[in-house]
């Protein structure tokens, strides 16, 4: 793809669905080093409690303002953070194309993330919605902006891996 505006609604929808499938595949398989490549260089990635979003408060639980920030998060996951081993599995549903913001495709989707710790049953970890802006870079769909707004305000201890 080169210019999103020229694509048919059906093609956009198929492309968006493929992007989310690839994105979650990357995270669920813990290929975190590839995660920043789903974003353009000057991107915005945030994980925001719904209470802040609804009240217009600017604080994010997790804020990345460039691909460099995303890479720093990966360094932290791999090298600096101390945490119990776990699996996080994310499921996405209800991908919907909401319109255009300039040349950026506005997409929303619902997600749920499940956490499995070694000595515990799997639990619902984080539930929310993606509010995304998508563009094309090097012939590939990429996120210009990805905001994860989560309903489950009380985080079960730590949010270590991206959503």
């Amino acid at each position, binding site marked *: 793809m080169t210019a999103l505006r020229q694509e048919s609604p059906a093609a956009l929808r198929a492309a968006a669905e493929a992007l989310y499938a690839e994105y979650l595949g990357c995270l669920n398989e813990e290929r975190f080093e590839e995660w920043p490549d789903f974003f353009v260089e000057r991107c915005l990635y945030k994980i925001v409690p719904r209470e802040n979003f609804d009240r217009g408060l600017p604080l994010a639980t997790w804020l990345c303002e*460039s691909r460099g920030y995303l*890479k720093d998060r990966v*360094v932290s996951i791999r090298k600096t953070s*101390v945490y*119990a081993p776990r699996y996080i599995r994310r499921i996405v549903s209800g991908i919907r194309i909401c319109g255009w913001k300039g040349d950026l495709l506005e997409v929303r989707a619902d997600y749920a993330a499940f956490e499995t710790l070694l000595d515990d049953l799997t639990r619902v970890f984080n539930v929310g919605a993606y509010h995304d802006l998508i563009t094309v870079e090097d012939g590939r769909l990429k996120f210009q902006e990805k905001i994860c707004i989560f309903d489950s305000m*009380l*985080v079960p201890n730590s949010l270590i891996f991206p959503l």
Partner: protein
Amino acid sequence: MTARRSWPREGSTRLPYWVYSDPDIYAREQERIFCGSTWNYVALEAEIPEAGDFKRTFIGDKSVVVTRDSEGCVNVVENRCAHRGVQFCQQHLGHVREFMCPYHQWTYDLSGKLLGVPFRRGIKAQGGMPSEFSLAEHGLRRLRVACRNGVIFASFAGDIEPLEQYLGCEILQLFDRVFDGRQLKILGYSRQLTPANWKLVMENIKDPYHASLLHVFLLSFGLNRADQPNRLVIDPSGRHAAGMTWRGEQKRTTDNAEMRSLLEDLKLNDPSMLDPVKEYERYTIVLMTIWPNLVMQQQSNTLAMRQVITKGPAAFELAWTFFGYATDDAAMTQRRLRQANLMGPAGFVSIDDGEGLAFVQRGTSCATEADGVLEMDGCDWAQETPHAVTEGEIRAMYEHYRKVMEL
């Protein structure tokens, strides 16, 4: 409670593991600490700026509502209808003219005064309350309130010293350093539920020993290390404390050779996250514990209240309120929001603490016959310590704790 628990003979250098999981101890803490002679942090005035605004929060297990009444005064009332015990307020924040319990519609004003009881005179002269029933005697339970420079504390105690005296002059000075009377601006909230006893979070902040060892991120970027200048202050009672550090060089020396986690080649891909501006005199980090439920954080340009809310012996909620000043320009607000990446449930630094405390809980809850060792820097504590290689703050806290708990 039975007196079946007794403190280890060694005294302050031992910490019996039953303090983290015994339900009787937990019940006694609720009664003697959270409902006892303590000032508990509940809100910032900036959260309830207008008359009619309220915030619902907790002191220990008890839900309370902080309100601003029509005269502009701050009130704190227990979130429990005087009639049948209904927790009538269910929102974190909001605005009302009066509170109405949904069950039988008893209504209260913002100071907790009972205004009306439906069918008080009965219907068609049948039923109703006895004629001597007095509204004045059935208001909400009101707590004592202390406000200082925009910060609200409350107490269940009938008789308690003024907040300033409770904090002591050294802690008060450090408190006033951030809360200097400037109007505050709320930046947002973060909440995490940590599967660990509430005292562990207070201990964690009172433990500068761990900071240079556990937090690879902090020390690799020279934000806080034991070989940097440090100053610790404890109030005369032992219950509150403050740790101050200021930024130093980040090279491997004989002093830090033992800090194995030090990764010298670590560089941020995007250094804009750590672009601090000097805002206060002398210290770059001040972390304070105000007994029993508040950690006050000034870490470079991130300012936050971390409120500890107990959730049974084996869990606590840490409710973070990040803030700045109303006079901050856009660049300063952005800086505070960026640096907030270090803190909270996804914090580059705080992740280690939440996880670490959960590990302590797991290790100790199945070994209530065993004790922890607190011998770093001796067996007592000093009001002033010029280094971070100490466990004096934790010993001081438990000395106070044992008096209150009669343990």
